């Protein structure tokens, strides 16, 4: 496969943060604690900002109306085991990459730590390399390498800078995800072996594999699909594989939880979209009703359980479960509209949860608690914080004009076209989302503050600077999602068409002349 570009954008996307991670780790201790902190944070910021600059450049160079992979880069890596360094970016991954590149510097700046900033920054940089690598890998093993690589930094970030029960939470997170990946790895190997039996070539190259695997028998596809999805379902998380997330989210330090919920959760949903749909179209179509059901259950269940949470971070964990449910719903709607909405929602959810978790983290920094029972009336002493929280909350609820709405609407209306009743039930999830968020907002920000609550600091300039880009993006994507959708939809259309071709189905159309909905088997 020829390399698209003279400049290896995608490889640099991985190498830059990884390289800066090494630099950050190499900053000597001898220069004194203060100087070292400054030095390390400058290195971290430089690494993340140059990555961001690179990502933005890529987005600008990204060709419109092209559903295929762009800026590909393909090199030998471990030829005897069939693994290559094959990177590429398309409408699905472009904005996830951008979101990742945006969120990391914000997480770094918003989630500064007191103790041992050096390791914190280095792990974050490595984590960024892992996340970006996962989003741009077109080789299954390469993807898996990055997918797993992310575990270690997150583990150390939680265990190193987390709250009281951090070790337990970190281990639970690690093992649960690890368990999921075990099945993914077997699935990946099985896919390559099947390909090898058919063609005699041992390769993990996604485009090559899609050609053979998409045509294998449904039974095989279902088994493989389940293996792949196990990992993604845990990572996302999809009901009922979510129980690691409340613990991990609640115990993570701010930067950790922001990345965990905003970026890493998307690895799961991205994986489903990239691998399940492309490799196993028949299984996807056959199993879609079940996954749609899981998605809907997740939406309602997550929202209902969130209503009973008394800790803001746990509440957000269940809220994420519900939002991921929407993304799953859109993905398995298997209509261009629904899937596009799903991709858009991945980005939206990332931005919104990042904002909310940052704010909760800051509240924790001030008040040493994220329990709703201990927080009261914060809007009085901290109006700017309250305003930012309100905005993010409303975006999360799906208020039109903010980014959450467009994605949610496309998902639900896209699902309505192909699987009407799932969409109808899921729509009720929209209501419950408002219940717990408004309740939490009332508990934390309303009422008359007393004691420490009354003297809570409002956002500092640094914190404000972190919020501003998020707020602007939340509003911008709600008001003008066109630039994003224009780049997403060609890829999605191509993907849905390939699923249709492989399974002999067609996605339902609209208008008075079309047949009754739900015609897809």
């Amino acid at each position, binding site marked *: 496969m020829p390399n698209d570009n003279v400049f290896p954008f995608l490889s640099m996307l991985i190498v830059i943060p990884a390289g800066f991670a090494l630099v950050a780790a190499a900053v000597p201790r001898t220069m004194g604690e203060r100087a070292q902190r400054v030095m390390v944070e400058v290195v971290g910021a430089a690494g993340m900002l140059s990555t961001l600059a690179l990502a933005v450049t890529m987005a600008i160079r990204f060709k419109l109306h092209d559903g295929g992979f762009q800026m590909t880069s393909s090199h*030998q*890596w*471990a*030829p*005897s*085991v069939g*693994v290559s360094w094959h990177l590429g970016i398309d409408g699905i991954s472009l904005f996830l990459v951008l979101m990742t590149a945006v969120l990391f510097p914000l997480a770094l700046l918003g989630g500064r730590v007191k103790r041992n900033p050096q390791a914190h920054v280095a792990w974050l940089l490595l984590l960024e390399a892992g996340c970006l690598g996962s989003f741009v890998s077109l080789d299954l*093993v390469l993807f*898996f*390498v*990055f997918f*797993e*690589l992310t*575990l*270690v930094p997150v*583990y*150390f970030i939680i*265990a*190193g800078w987390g*709250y*009281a*029960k*951090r*070790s*337990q939470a*970190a*281990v639970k997170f*690690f*093992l649960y995800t*690890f*368990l999921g990946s*075990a*099945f993914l*790895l*077997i699935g990946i*190997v*099985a896919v*390559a*072996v099947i390909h*090898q039996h058919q063609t005699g070539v*041992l390769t993990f190259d996604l485009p090559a594999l899609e050609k053979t695997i998409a045509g294998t028998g449904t039974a095989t596809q279902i088994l493989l699909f389940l293996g792949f999805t196990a990992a993604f379902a845990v990572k996302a998380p999809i009901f009922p594989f979510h129980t690691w997330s409340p613990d991990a989210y609640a115990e993570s330090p701010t930067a950790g939880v922001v990345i965990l919920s905003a970026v890493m959760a998307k690895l799961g949903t991205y994986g489903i979209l990239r691998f399940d749909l492309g490799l196993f179209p028949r299984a996807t179509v056959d199993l879609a009703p079940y996954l749609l059901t899981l998605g809907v259950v997740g939406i309602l269940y997550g929202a209902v359980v969130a209503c009973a949470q008394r800790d803001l971070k746990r509440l957000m964990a269940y809220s994420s479960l519900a939002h991921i449910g929407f993304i799953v719903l859109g993905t398995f709607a298997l209509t261009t509209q629904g899937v596009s909405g799903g991709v858009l929602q991945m980005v939206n959810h990332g931005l919104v949860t990042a904002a909310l978790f940052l704010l909760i983290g800051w509240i924790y920094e001030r008040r040493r608690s994220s329990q709703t029972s201990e927080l009261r009336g914060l809007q009085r002493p901290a109006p700017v914080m309250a305003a930012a929280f309100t905005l993010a909350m409303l975006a999360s609820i799906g208020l039109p004009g903010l980014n959450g709405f467009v994605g949610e609407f496309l998902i639900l209306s896209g699902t309505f076209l192909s699987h009407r009743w799932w969409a109808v039930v899921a729509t009720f999830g929209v209501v419950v989302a408002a219940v717990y968020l408004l309740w939490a907002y009332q508990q934390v920000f309303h009422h008359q503050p007393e004691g420490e609550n009354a003297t809570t600091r409002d956002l500092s300039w640094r914190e404000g600077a972190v919020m501003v880009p998020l707020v602007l993006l939340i509003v911008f994507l709600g008001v003008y999602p066109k630039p994003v959708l224009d780049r997403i939809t060609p890829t999605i259309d191509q993907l849905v068409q390939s699923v249709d071709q492989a399974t002999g189905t067609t996605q339902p159309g609209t208008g008075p002349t079309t047949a009754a909905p739900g015609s897809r088997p």
Partner: protein
Amino acid sequence: MTALLAATPAHLTVKIAYLSILPMLALLGGALVILVWSSLLRRPLETVWITSLTVLAATAALVLSLMQYFDVIHHGAHVAIDGAIVSDGFSAFVAVLVSAAVVVAALVGDGWLQQETIRGPEFHVLVLVSASGAMVMGAANDLIVVFLGLEILSIALYVLAAFNARRRQSGEAALKYFVLGGFSSAVFLYGIALVYGSTGTTNLPQIASYLAQNYVLHNGMLLAGLALLLVGFGFKAAAVPFHLWTPDVYQGSPSPVTGFMAAVAKVGAFAALLRVFVSSFGLLRADWQPAVWVIAVASLLLGASVALVQRDIKRMLAYSSINHAGFILLGLQAGSTKGVEGSLYYLFAYSFLALGSFAVISVVGGPGDGRHGLDRYRGLARRQPWLAGALALFLVAQAGIPPTTGFWAKLEVLQAAAGAHSYALAVIAMLSAVIAGFFYLRVVVLMYSPAGATGDGAATGTIVDTVEPARAVGDEGEPVGVAPGGEAGSGAVALLEADTGESAEPLVIPGTTGIALALCAGATVVLGIYPAWLTDFAHQATLLFHP
């Protein structure tokens, strides 16, 4: 050189093809030189010199085995010494691996010897001899040569296991290892006898051609011989149910010896096992695959689950090595060249992980090499960030996290298993890896938790939570507390440890151990990021498998 040898008239002399045995000769020669030199001197030879000589010999062996490898690439595989030894990619790979392991083991041993103030050349000599046995097993082309290699490897190891005269566990380990080793050797030998009786030969290629020419698939005696061979190999490879010695011996032996044992003994055993079963008895694949399947599953699950409840790190890693044995058996069970490739890669990766882990353990064990309770690792990251980082790396790699050799090893054997449609085995293996992930992680958690039980509340909670499971299990059953066992002074030792806590004597990493750790860590990471070097090596080694 081979060309030269080939030119000499065959009837005058046995064709030796020295290059094929030169790596072993280098090791043995090194051992001899050290022995002779040190006995000629009046005063005991300085350990530095002995170590240097050992490393020199091992490096020579490494270079020679690489030369052997390139010779094989250019001129093809061939047999030597009247068919007793074979020189092919496989043997070269094993030789490279063993000699590299010796370099590391010698360095680690040096640090340990200095720490324990043990003088004399015996340790290094025994390591060299033992390693040559493993190399022989890798190159053996005859069952009797396999047996000889096995015994050379084992007898030296028995002594090494007993090397720490000050610890009673060391003697006990040696005794157990010796009795059981002798027992299994006898079984192995009887297996050779039965195979010999059924096929009329002990030469591996001849056995293969015999099986190919004669339809003897139902020969009970042959199969019984095969079963006995499997027992012998299984014992050395620490596969369930022949693993029972492993935890005790790993725990009791001096830590550097344990590392060496875990690496080299496994390499030797698996090398011979792979060659014998895949190349000679490949035709009987259908018969032995189910047995290997069961053994592999048992090793995977038992190793992982029992390691979970250990409170001594060496014992824990012993069970973990049983789990790894199960993974390597995945490659054997596939019964294909891909399987051999996978197993070889796995052995390579695992060897350096084991050597590295036990190197760290030998440092943390402190003087006397007696403190291996998991509590000892609490807060290690504060006291010794590099040491803790290295151990964390080795453990994470053993769990199979990329980008380390541990990951590629698992990928390799999984490919083999999937290629042989052993999906159930693959699934069980990966599940066991998840279980194993837990106990590797537990150590990492401990190392990165704040030290001292009297820290802030949050920190204490953390540690209790993490270690809780193990403790709870220990309580509910009989008091099987592995922590210094039933030893008389165990209570006192435990108390002492608890009291001293963090303020205990500062840990000193001997320079040589440091180098060894750097080598292991470097191999793990560099070969993880550039996997092609090693995967291609393993691949080529298997393609050049003789016959």
